[in-house]
């Protein structure tokens, strides 16, 4: 879950990192009074959960408080990569002598956090790594040994930085690593970290991503930052349909019937599990089908949970039929899913036989499941029919 820049900076500030003076404005008046308070010139930055703000014109500079007010009104409506601005961050603007990049993230291959440092900050780090590899260092961090600042020093020094800059940078970089480790982050980035003309350092832009799995552990921090439990902070905000799907999943702890994502097609999908859903979604599209949604069932959800998910998918505007498909199941019981989807159809006032385009879930308790499906006249297939073929049959039914 991604943090807004102002939230990232609030976290950094808590831990003593040098964040410039500033505040968040939600109106032109607020922007103006913040600019007055901080003193011009100021920078105004759109608060969106996306990069590419500069390119989109969502970062601007004001020389007077009045200009700050005008620029606020210009910045707020700008959509950056499909994201609306939440507010505008107003910060003091100081003359910069040098820009650095500092990031901490996970290296899945080495299975360790990695500190990435460059003395060429402010631009895309991947580009720097490609064109000037000698200006980018990677330092892996043990998760068992206590972290000490010498790793930060080595990472900084590896790019050729020495003297006062090395000694001033080391505690800042070390602190960022500590924040990364303490809050279960998947990314902690300062780009750029700048040396101002007076020799001091400042965090100009910050970016933090927290692992969803660790939200509960850091509930106090999230509450302090004002991040609500309902905020998913994915690439785009959830739709009403997706929020309803999360509720279905949360209502009952047994199994999974969730991870619902809306698409604009006419074929509703009740599919599983993790990998199976990805495979089936691809298969439907490959056959020219238009999925109305993505979802995942697995871990043996209850009849009620599957029923509620089915009803939700059927209630989505434009859904004509549903396809119920999974890979060969190990733990999820075929008969329980069959009962759930049939119940969902009936409770939605629809005939399971015409509503369920195909039922392809082979595996445990399949004989019992197939009996129930046969009774309701639902077309089903066993493991001799591939996932791909089942998806093709469902698509053909909608087209025919």
């Amino acid at each position, binding site marked *: 879950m991604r943090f807004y820049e102002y939230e990232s900076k609030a976290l950094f500030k808590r831990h003593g990192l040098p964040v410039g003076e500033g505040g968040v404005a939600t109106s032109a008046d607020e922007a103006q009074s913040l600019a007055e308070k901080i003193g011009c010139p100021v920078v105004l930055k759109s608060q969106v959960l996306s990069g590419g703000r500069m390119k989109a014109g969502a970062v601007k500079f004001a020389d007077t408080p009045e200009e700050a007010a005008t620029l606020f009104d210009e910045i707020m409506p700008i959509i950056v990569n499909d994201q609306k601005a939440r507010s505008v961050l107003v910060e003091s603007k100081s003359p910069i002598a040098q820009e650095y990049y500092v990031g901490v993230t996970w290296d899945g291959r080495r299975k360790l956090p990695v500190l990435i440092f460059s003395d060429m900050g402010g631009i895309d780090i991947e580009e720097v790594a490609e064109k000037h590899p000698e200006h980018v260092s990677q330092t892996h961090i043990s998760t068992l040994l206590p972290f000490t600042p010498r790793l930060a020093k080595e990472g900084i020094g590896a790019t050729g930085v020495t003297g006062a800059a090395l000694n001033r940078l080391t505690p800042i970089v070390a602190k960022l690593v500590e924040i990364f480790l303490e809050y279960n982050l998947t990314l902690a980035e300062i780009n750029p970290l700048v040396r101002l003309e007076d020799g001091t350092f400042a965090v100009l832009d910050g970016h933090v991503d927290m692992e969803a799995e660790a939200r509960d552990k850091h509930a106090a921090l999230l509450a302090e930052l004002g991040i609500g439990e309902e905020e998913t902070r994915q*690439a785009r905000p959830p739709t009403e349909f997706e929020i309803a799907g999360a509720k279905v999943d949360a209502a009952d702890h047994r199994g999974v019937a969730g991870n619902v994502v809306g698409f604009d097609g006419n074929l509703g999908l009740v599919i599983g599990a993790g990998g199976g859903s990805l495979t089936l979604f691809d298969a439907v599209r490959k056959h020219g089908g238009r999925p109305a949604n993505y979802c995942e069932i697995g871990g043996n959800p209850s009849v009620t949970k599957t029923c509620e998910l089915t009803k939700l998918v059927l209630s989505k505007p434009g859904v004509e039929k549903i396809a119920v498909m999974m890979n060969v199941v190990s733990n999820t019981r075929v008969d329980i899913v069959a009962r759930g989807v049939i119940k969902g159809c009936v409770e939605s006032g629809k005939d399971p036989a015409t509503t369920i385009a195909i039922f392809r879930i082979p595996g445990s308790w399949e004989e019992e499941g197939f009996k129930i499906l046969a009774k309701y006249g639902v077309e089903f297939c066993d493991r001799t029919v591939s996932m791909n073929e089942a998806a093709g049959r469902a698509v053909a039914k909608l087209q025919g």
Partner: protein
Amino acid sequence: MSILIDRNTTFIVQGITGREAVSLTRENLAYGSKIVGGVTPGRAGREVYGVPVYDCVRDIASKRKVDGAVVCVPPKFTRDAVFEAIENGIEIIVIVTERIPRLEVAQMVELAALRGARIIGPNCLGIITPDEVKMGGVGGPAADTKKAYSKGSVGIMSRSGGMTTEIANTLTAAGLGQSTAVSIGGDAVIGTSYAELMPLFEADPETKAIAIYSEPGGRMEAELAEWVKDNDSRLPIVAFMAGRFMDEMPGMRFGHAGTIVEGRADTTADKIERMQRSGISVAERIEEIPGLIQQKLAEVN
């Protein structure tokens, strides 16, 4: 032969009295696995399907040889359970639990490396050597497992537990049995990657080919492609890549915790290209896997 486990492998189940662990124990025993004990603190003296329950791993590991552990404890307690298994000399640890923060996974993996233990998972269904043993929930009830898996010479590695069985089932239907199938887990940081299992398959005379299930996110496929090239692998590999639709949806998480497109290297397009360049065949559909394997085996011979 096989990799990781065979009919003589003894293992324990940590968290054995939990609902899922109880069925896992029943299914594994019914398939012929040698479960020599279980651990749930405070429940010493009980039995689960005849398997004695202990308070600590030490209480059994000090008495007899224990090769492996299946860890089925809630995410909050998983790190402690895995540390306990490692420090008591257990060498192969299957972590079934999902939703463990990756910092803790990394700590377990780091300790395992120090002690010479191997972790499979987390967020996986475990390992199966067909007709001999299974360790974990892979395949479900014994009768269902027997329908999908058969003994043979194809090794399977999969980031999805369910798709491990789907692929095995497809291979079995085509008359291709499996040497060992490993559900490696769906998280961003896992104990053992494709490339780390390859030397084991390479050294197993029974294994003649490899089938892989793969997804967007991470660098595991790139790592495999490099390994195959650098080591001039004798094994023909056929991969299936799911989640192609995700290439158009950066930043969205689907399927597993590790499945997200952030940079270009996370996309299926990039992974497919890398794998193909290293000589790995990429199947468009699951049902193409057996044919591609047979074709590649024919070329080798």
